[in-house]
């Protein structure tokens, strides 16, 4: 059957620059580039190109450019090229379209419709280069109040907390969905930065236990790699209920990615598919969640905070309230632009709500119920820069999870082909030939650089607002104004319009 | 201050000077050589004959070598004998040179075939620089030469002569040329190349008589065949030049016997190079291996030990890199094994003139031949020398891309990263 699907990209090779060195040939796991023995020239099979830009980056003469295939269908605002292509693909495959990374559709990005405040005259801005600027963040359950004895000595003992030097964590990405070198990059960067990374639902590879102090060990519906040592290996536990990229459905790691190391870590046979059920089959209601939270606390002797991660869905505020009351110490909320290693395209692109709305709604709901101060709230799902972080915290988050930006830092070029396992950047792959492309020394360094850069920017912005401690930004919606938003959107975000 | 005396001035002698100087910068070194030259590259005499080597290329070390190393050079004088009791060397000019430590590095001298007419003018050997210079003066275009011996020296001489325009016939007693370094398959391939370049090769035969009046006009072979020629080059081999130790208590077998420190049976007297008989790690016996690298390395070990070191010579085995008419070949160790202890594998691509062979003894590589495709052959040399267990990658040894990538990771890391194996 001939494929009707057009090549998505064209590989442009500047023959004046190409030296036939074949670096592109050697770097492309999709076999796009090849040496034509007949004339000794390097050529390309465009149809295989996913625009991961490995070749573009590695070409020593900058001879390569990948462009979108300019071939268009007859203009049709409804039947777009994308719509037609998807039909063609499904007509050929008879299958659900799988994709990865976050929702790329043109939904409003509220971050970009929110602007920040700065001090002028009446309140001095603070120069972070001269004055202390504090970003230290404690995540975990807080009592309503501290008790003191008659001599004014503290009686209350705090439950375990996560201490972050910067209110940024690397969110859950499993060993299996990403490579061990990617995991190690995250773990080492988290350790160096004094923050945390999250194992995802893939268990913890034996070589990563040494980063336990900066690890959040996730427990998801598949319970892969969950055992007593695993639960006790990290600084915190996270029960994954849902993921922003695919609310309501489970996960699927194809057997070909389950090599010896993944198999040993996940405790499943080599080559077998790792299927995470859509729900936890021991959680069909909120009281079941409470049981699991306390089961995990018991298993770790109440030494670790327990986080519950949910996808941002319509009634996220009420769900978050329930989770807080079920005993979670941290609630992580993953917006619909959050990434994934593999998800059905229709789910990714159509299910869930934006994190900006979700975090505002959750913060307000918990505040109204008088329990906001008891739990920590973490915002996730496409935090792209430090301004997004500032806005998330001002809307009410205690900290953010980043994943896509972390992956971009270590090489991801957003080709959205994680699900194929042929990640040319050594991230979303288990192919040893590709995995080694990500040197964890470099990965960790780039992550540290990214977070450090954001840290500087956050401090600058805070200083501009006349704030010298991040806790004074939490829920401080006075510092936000909306631009180009409807009154309803402003109300949900709990912010005023610019000029108000 | 130690008086070091070295008889000979080639690879082993230079190795010894450099070996001594690694440890002792003050002792006096005296080098005694019959040849009136600074150390030169003996293998290059064929290049000299062919006209592709000049004085600069011939010089084995910079002109300042002797001065820089504080060497007293006695050239053009022969060491006649050694008084191992009085610890002195007796020179042809009657002088004596006292030594504390002595190295005998007198090299080899050509085997001369006893044959009728062997005293005629126009019979040459091909060992020394003077031999080449002499030959070059008579090797005119259109003349004819018979080379007796199809070994390394004979064929190198033949190649040089052909390049001078001489019509050359090589007579080899054995059933193949280069019998010490090639097996039949390789020898046939090389012989083809020689013949393509105009060399007439006669196997299984030898010269029994040189004919002519005063000078050479032809030879008669054992088979009865006669060949017209203007000159004869005898190149049937060299033997250790042990003249200087005759009538001394220094033990000789084929060459001067040495221990693993290159010391002879007499204290403070060492021997190295083509004159010495040392341990061969492939054959696992004492033998003379007259090749340049061995000479240097033995000399260096001897020198270090003369200067008080405790160095062991453990890299003795035959290995050669040579080319004829642009056909390169590298061979080492046992290339034509005899007996059930050995196993050999080979691959041949006649159209590319590629031939590869590896010889194993148990899990060790003990020899190889590489014809044309000599890339990275040194890895194999290294495997022989280090007695590496090759069983994990035995099947890859003949592959074009054979390298460390096929070796066990721990070994590779040890070699490439300097990481010691646990």
């Amino acid at each position, binding site marked *: 059957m001939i494929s009707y699907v057009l090549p998505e990209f064209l590989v442009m090779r500047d023959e004046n620059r190409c030296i036939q060195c074949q670096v592109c040939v050697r770097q492309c796991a999709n076999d796009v580039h090849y040496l034509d023995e007949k004339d000794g020239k390097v050529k390309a099979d465009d149809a295989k190109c996913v625009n991961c830009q490995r070749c573009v980056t590695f070409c020593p003469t900058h001879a390569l450019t990948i462009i979108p295939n300019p071939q268009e269908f007859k203009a049709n605002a409804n039947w777009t090229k994308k719509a037609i292509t998807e039909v063609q693909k499904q007509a050929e495959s008879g299958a659900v379209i799988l994709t990865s990374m976050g929702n790329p559709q043109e939904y409003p990005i509220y971050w970009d419709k929110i602007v920040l405040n700065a001090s002028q005259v009446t309140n001095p801005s603070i120069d972070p280069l001269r004055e202390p600027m504090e970003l230290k963040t404690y995540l975990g359950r807080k009592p309503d109040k501290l008790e003191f004895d008659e001599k004014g000595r503290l009686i209350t003992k705090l439950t375990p907390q996560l201490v972050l030097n910067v209110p940024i964590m690397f969110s859950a990405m499993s060993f299996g969905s990403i490579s061990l070198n990617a995991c190690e990059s995250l773990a080492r960067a988290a350790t160096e930065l004094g923050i945390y990374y999250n194992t995802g639902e893939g268990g913890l590879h034996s070589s990563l236990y040494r980063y336990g102090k900066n690890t959040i060990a996730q427990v998801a519906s598949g319970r892969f790699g969950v055992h007593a040592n695993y639960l006790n290996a990290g600084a915190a536990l996270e029960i994954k209920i849902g993921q922003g990229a695919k609310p309501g459905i489970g996960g699927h790691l194809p057997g070909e990615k389950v090599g010896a190391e993944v198999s040993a870590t996940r405790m499943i046979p080599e080559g077998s598919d790792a299927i995470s059920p859509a729900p936890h089959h021991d959680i069909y209601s909120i009281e079941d969640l409470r049981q699991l939270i306390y089961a995990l606390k018991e298993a770790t002797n109440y030494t670790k905070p327990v986080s519950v991660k949910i996808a941002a869905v319509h009634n996220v505020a009420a769900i978050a309230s329930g989770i807080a009351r079920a005993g979670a110490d941290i609630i992580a909320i993953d917006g619909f632009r959050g990434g994934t290693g593999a998800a059905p395209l229709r789910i990714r692109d159509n299910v869930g709500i934006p994190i900006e709305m979700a975090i505002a709604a959750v913060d307000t709901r918990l505040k109204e119920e008088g329990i906001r101060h008891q739990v920590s709230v973490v915002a996730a799902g496409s935090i792209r820069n430090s301004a997004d972080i500032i806005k998330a915290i001002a809307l009410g988050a205690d900290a953010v999870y980043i994943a896509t930006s972390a992956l971009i830092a270590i090489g991801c070029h957003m080709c959205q082909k994680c699900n194929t396992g042929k990640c040319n950047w050594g991230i979303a792959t288990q192919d040893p030939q590709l995995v080694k492309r990500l040197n964890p020394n470099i990965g960790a360094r780039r992550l540290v650089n990214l977070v450090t850069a954001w840290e500087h920017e956050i401090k600058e912005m805070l200083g501009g607002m006349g704030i010298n401690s991040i806790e004074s930004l939490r829920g401080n919606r006075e510092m936000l104004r909306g631009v180009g938003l409807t009154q309803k959107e402003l109300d949900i975000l709990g912010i005023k319009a610019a000029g108000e | 201050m130690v008086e070091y005396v070295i008889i000979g001035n080639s690879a082993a002698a230079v190795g010894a000077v450099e070996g001594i100087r690694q440890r002792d910068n003050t002792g006096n070194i005296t080098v005694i050589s019959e040849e009136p030259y600074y150390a030169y590259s003996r293998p290059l005499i064929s290049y000299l004959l062919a006209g592709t080597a000049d004085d600069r290329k011939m010089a084995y070390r910079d002109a300042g070598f002797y001065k820089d190393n504080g060497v007293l050079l006695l050239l053009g004088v022969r060491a006649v004998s050694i008084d191992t009791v009085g610890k002195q060397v007796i020179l042809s000019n009657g002088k004596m040179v006292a030594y504390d430590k002595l190295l005998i590095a007198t090299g080899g001298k050509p085997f001369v075939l006893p044959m009728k007419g062997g005293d005629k003018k126009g019979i040459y050997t091909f060992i020394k620089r003077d031999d080449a210079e002499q030959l070059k003066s008579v090797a005119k275009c259109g003349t004819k030469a018979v080379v007796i011996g199809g070994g390394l020296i004979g064929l190198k001489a033949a190649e040089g002569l052909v390049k001078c325009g001489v019509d050359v016939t090589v007579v080899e007693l054995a059933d193949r040329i280069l019998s010490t370094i090639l097996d039949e398959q390789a020898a046939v391939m090389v012989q083809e190349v020689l013949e393509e370049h105009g060399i007439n090769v006669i196997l299984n035969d030898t010269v029994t008589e040189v004919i002519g009046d005063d000078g050479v006009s032809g030879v008669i072979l054992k088979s009865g065949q006669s060949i017209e020629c203007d000159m004869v080059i005898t190149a049937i081999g060299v033997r250790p030049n042990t003249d200087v130790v005759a009538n001394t208590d220094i033990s000789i077998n084929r060459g001067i016997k040495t221990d693993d420190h290159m010391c002879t049976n007499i204290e403070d007297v060492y021997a190295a190079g083509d004159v010495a008989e040392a341990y061969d790690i492939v054959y696992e016996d004492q033998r003379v291996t007259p090749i340049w690298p061995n000479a240097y390395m033995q000399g260096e070990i001897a020198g270090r030990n003369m200067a008080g070191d405790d160095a062991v010579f453990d890299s003795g085995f035959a290995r050669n890199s040579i080319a004829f008419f642009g056909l390169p070949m590298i061979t080492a160790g046992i290339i034509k094994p005899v007996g059930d202890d050995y196993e050999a594998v080979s691959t041949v691509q006649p159209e590319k003139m590629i031939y590869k062979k590896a010889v194993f003894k148990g899990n060790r590589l003990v020899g190889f031949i590489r014809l044309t495709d000599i890339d990275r052959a040194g890895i194999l040399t290294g495997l022989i020398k280090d007695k590496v267990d090759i069983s994990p990658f035995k099947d890859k040894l003949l592959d074009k891309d054979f390298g460390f990538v096929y070796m066990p990771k721990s070994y590779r890391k040890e070699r*490439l990263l300097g990481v010691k194996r646990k």
Partner: protein
Amino acid sequence: MKRVYALEEYCVGCRLCEINCIVAHSQSKDIIWAFKVEEPRPLPGILVEEARPISFGLQCRHCDDAVCIKSCITGAMHRDERDTVVCDTDKCVGCWTCIMACPYGAIKANENDGKVVSKCDLCPDLSQPACVSHCPNEALIYVDRG
């Protein structure tokens, strides 16, 4: 002395080391000129061994006990003032004895450029060898491990 070491765990087999070695040893030091115009093109002093997924760059180890120097029949192969093992191509006759001797297989026959051997010279004019500078994954390091 400082040497180049290959970390095979991170070698991506791109061979940019070889390419940049060629550029560094070209006349123009310009990659396009070096590859498209200049004749003869230098041989790379580094080679990449590869048997997927393993690969690593390998070049002269500049051995303390360099058998190539000891084996060299002309004295062309020597140690220079930086302790780098180099070949004096004016003296080299292309006998390939060093190729026979080098246990790393790090010396190449260069038939293009006279008949001499070609090997790593640790880029004497650069602050660090070009292969190291251009390795995209830091799989080559230039350090002193004694």
